């Protein structure tokens, strides 16, 4: 069987800002197609910067970064992104917000409208298609943002702490919703978070980043069966993964 | 042309009948600017227009309000108007500052600039102004000539408190006694104040030795040179109208109110127009009008005007007096001695008493 190329290849990537601050040093890892990988670490460890580099919004200082074997130089249509806050345009309806990527690429709206509505239905908010963002709760807005990121069927989904602005109960539910969507569409996912249990719950693999400058310090595969329900968080195996990740993070901080 | 009242009225009727005919031929468009709002002092222009005195001479005159004699000199000098009526002293000053203007005929030869006060203030003589508050409009001719008045009357300028304001505020400030007296133009101030049932004491600069001409018609010298017939027709129309208003004051008021609808409203307004017209007529009772015809200049007085302007109004390079006016167009309309007597009698209350 011919080897399937990796979805994401990151080789010794460094990033230094103009101010002289080195955010990332020698970051190296790969992500297989359809894999759900988390980048876990405390604030300031450069994980968001790494995501911006992957999104093509910032240039690398050195090293190489490839998505589907092509070098990353600018944003691309087959990559979708979800941010910490939903960043919905307040003057557009939910549906129009989801269709924004379609508009920006000047693709025909009608062809994608059905897909957009499908996504909204999968996320459970199809009734809100004609509403304006201010009428939605924080969790619902983030669901719209996720639909927007998925409307062009991206091969890679980048998520920058998408649930950190939500309350704990909503967070759990959103993680569940995300997994459900992911199971049906199976994009590759790079998921940034600072919540250990969240990382374990959603991922196939968790990479721990250590700060200043950011680099991958520790890695673990999460071999929990799928599909996962919220109750899995009470299992012994789950807690062992969570524990080892916590110890890894604490070890990095001491160093 | 000596006018008898009967001939004139008959002539007027004939003219009115002829007006539609004249209008059907093409008329030359002419623009005239007044020095201020169209109050009673400018009735002659509206009479000229309404009675067709310009139409019959082939002119279609548009009458615009003005914003002070200084502004009139500028806009007239720039060619925005063919003719203007303004203060001759201010005109002389502007000529000295580089504007090209020449006087065509006088309307109110006796200068109406002066100091005015409500009668109850008891300010009858120049000396009474010492220790009082006197208001002036910034940049007005009367303010510029205040030093001349001071010099000739010998009052102590330092003892007079002067207050400056915009021209629109002058009348109200006087009535509401925010000031004791003010510098203004007789024809612009008095009619409004009298119509409110108040009485004024009047000290005209001209009555106290300041040698300067008052309001008159003017144009650019170029227009006189290139279009003398136009000037003749325009001035003839004005002078004929002026004579008519001297002899038919009540009808003149009616015509004025008919043509300036903004003033139609109340009895008080009619009084204001009536007084304004009366003042204008009273200021025309000068020897040069009686002897040489309506509008005529006395060259010696022009010379004295020039000297006053150069001394007090700041212009240094005023051309010689004979360049400031022309008698080529004025003086064609005359009244009989009997008519002058009648006119003088009808406006005697408007002739300011000297204390």
């Amino acid at each position, binding site marked *: 069987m011919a080897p399937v190329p990796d979805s994401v290849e990151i080789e010794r990537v460094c990033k230094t800002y103009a101010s002289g601050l080195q955010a990332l040093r020698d970051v190296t890892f790969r992500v297989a197609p359809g894999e759900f990988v988390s980048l876990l670490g405390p604030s300031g460890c450069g994980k968001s910067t790494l995501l911006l580099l992957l999104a093509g919004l910032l240039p690398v200082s050195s090293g190489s970064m490839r998505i589907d074997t092509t070098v990353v130089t600018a944003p691309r249509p087959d990559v979708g992104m979800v941010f910490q806050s939903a960043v919905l345009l307040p003057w557009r309806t939910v549906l129009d917000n989801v269709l924004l990527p379609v508009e920006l690429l000047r693709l025909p709206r009608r062809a994608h409208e059905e897909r957009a509505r499908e996504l909204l239905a999968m996320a459970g908010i199809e009734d809100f298609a004609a509403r304006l963002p201010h009428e939605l709760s924080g969790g619902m807005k983030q669901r719209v943002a996720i639909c927007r990121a998925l409307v062009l069927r991206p091969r890679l989904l980048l998520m920058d702490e998408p649930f950190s602005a939500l309350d704990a109960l909503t967070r759990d539910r959103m993680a569940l919703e995300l997994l459900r969507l992911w199971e049906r569409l199976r994009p590759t996912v790079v998921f940034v978070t600072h919540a250990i249990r969240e990382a374990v719950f959603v991922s196939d693999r968790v990479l721990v980043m250590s700060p200043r400058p950011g680099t991958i310090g520790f890695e673990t595969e999460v071999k929990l069966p799928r599909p996962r329900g919220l109750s899995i968080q009470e299992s012994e195996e789950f807690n062992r993964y969570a524990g080892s990740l916590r110890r890894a993070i604490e070890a990095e901080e001491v160093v | 042309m000596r006018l008898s009242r009967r001939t004139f009225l008959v002539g007027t009727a004939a003219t009115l009948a002829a007006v539609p005919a004249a209008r059907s031929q093409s008329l030359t468009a002419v623009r005239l600017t007044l020095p201020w*709002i169209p109050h009673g002092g400018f009735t002659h222009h509206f009479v000229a227009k309404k009675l067709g005195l310009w139409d019959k001479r082939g002119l279609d005159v548009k009458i615009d309000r003005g914003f002070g004699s200084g502004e009139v000199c500028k806009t007239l000098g720039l060619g925005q108007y063919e003719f203007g009526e303004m203060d001759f002293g201010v005109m002389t000053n502007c000529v000295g500052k580089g504007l090209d203007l020449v006087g065509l005929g006088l309307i109110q030869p006796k200068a109406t600039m002066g100091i005015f006060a409500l009668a109850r203030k008891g300010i009858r003589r120049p000396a009474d102004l010492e220790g009082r508050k006197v208001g002036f409009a910034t940049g007005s001719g009367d303010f510029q000539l205040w030093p001349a008045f001071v010099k000739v009357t010998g009052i102590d300028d330092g003892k007079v408190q002067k207050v400056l304001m915009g021209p629109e505020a002058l009348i109200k400030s006087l009535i509401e006694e925010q000031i004791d007296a003010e510098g203004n133009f007789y024809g612009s101030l008095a009619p409004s104040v009298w119509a409110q049932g108040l009485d004024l004491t009047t000290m005209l600069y001209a009555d106290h030795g300041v040698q300067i001409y008052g309001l008159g018609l003017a144009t650019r010298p170029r227009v006189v040179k290139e279009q003398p017939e136009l000037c003749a027709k325009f001035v003839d129309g004005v002078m004929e109208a002026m004579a008519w208003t001297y002899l038919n004051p009540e009808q003149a008021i009616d015509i004025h109110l008919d043509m300036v609808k903004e003033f139609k*409203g109340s009895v008080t307004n009619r009084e204001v127009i009536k007084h304004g017209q009366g003042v204008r007529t009273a200021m025309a009772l000068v020897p040069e009008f009686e002897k040489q015809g309506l509008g005529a200049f006395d060259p010696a007085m022009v010379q004295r005007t020039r000297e006053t302007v150069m001394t007090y109004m700041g212009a240094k390079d005023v051309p010689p007096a004979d360049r400031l006016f022309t008698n080529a167009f004025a003086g064609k309309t005359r009244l009989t001695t009997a008519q002058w007597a009648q006119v003088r009698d009808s406006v005697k209350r408007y002739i300011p008493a000297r204390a």
Partner: protein
Amino acid sequence: MSLSRLTWPLGVTAGALVVWEAAVAALGIKAVVLPRPSAIAAVVLERWPLLLEHLWPTFYQILLGFVLSVVGGFVMAVLLVYSERIRKGVLPLIVTSQIVPKVAVAPLLVVWFGTGDLSRLLLAFLIAFFPIVINTVVGLTSVDDDYIKMARAFMGTRWQIFAKIRLPHALPLIFGGMKISITLAVIGIVVAEFVAAQRGIGYLIVMANGLLDTPLMMAAIAVLSAMGLALYGLVVALERIVVYWHVPAETTAGGTP
């Protein structure tokens, strides 16, 4: 606008008018100084053809001046935002133009352009365009970085970001500027009419003042105020239609309705 929202302001206005009427009568104030509201109303009813005749040129000049200010101000703002050269060269001139008192400039405009419509329109433009420029610039540049980042991540070009994000974001602020601008346009045209017009409500006010016809003067002012309110209301109504989404309080400069 519901009836209940109108009752309070209407009530206060009615009360003020009653006090005014009573005070003039009781204190024996002369009509030339301050006429009674009933006298002013009588003049409005009696002489409405004259008032309308002068209101119309003022009205269309205000509208024209306002439209010019909005269009001109908007274009200027875009140039200021996107061209550093223009910003460095022109912005100081714009600010200086605001410091010069317009009443001083008016006679100059008359000398240069005559007492036709042009001088008044220029004067109104000079006064009314500035809030549009300022508010548009702030509106275009105050977009949260997150929106730009998001749009770029989804392949938005610079022009698309301008048209689809900066512009809609700026609309609430632009309308705030427009509300200020319409009142300034009214003031600008009317003040210009005091010193440079042959007709219009400002012209009528000066004429009435010259003859001490205070009732007519105040009737003209009343009619002018009504028109000004109506124009302002028009902008507010337009804003409700155009800015149909919820705008957080910090974004609306230029005051609430």
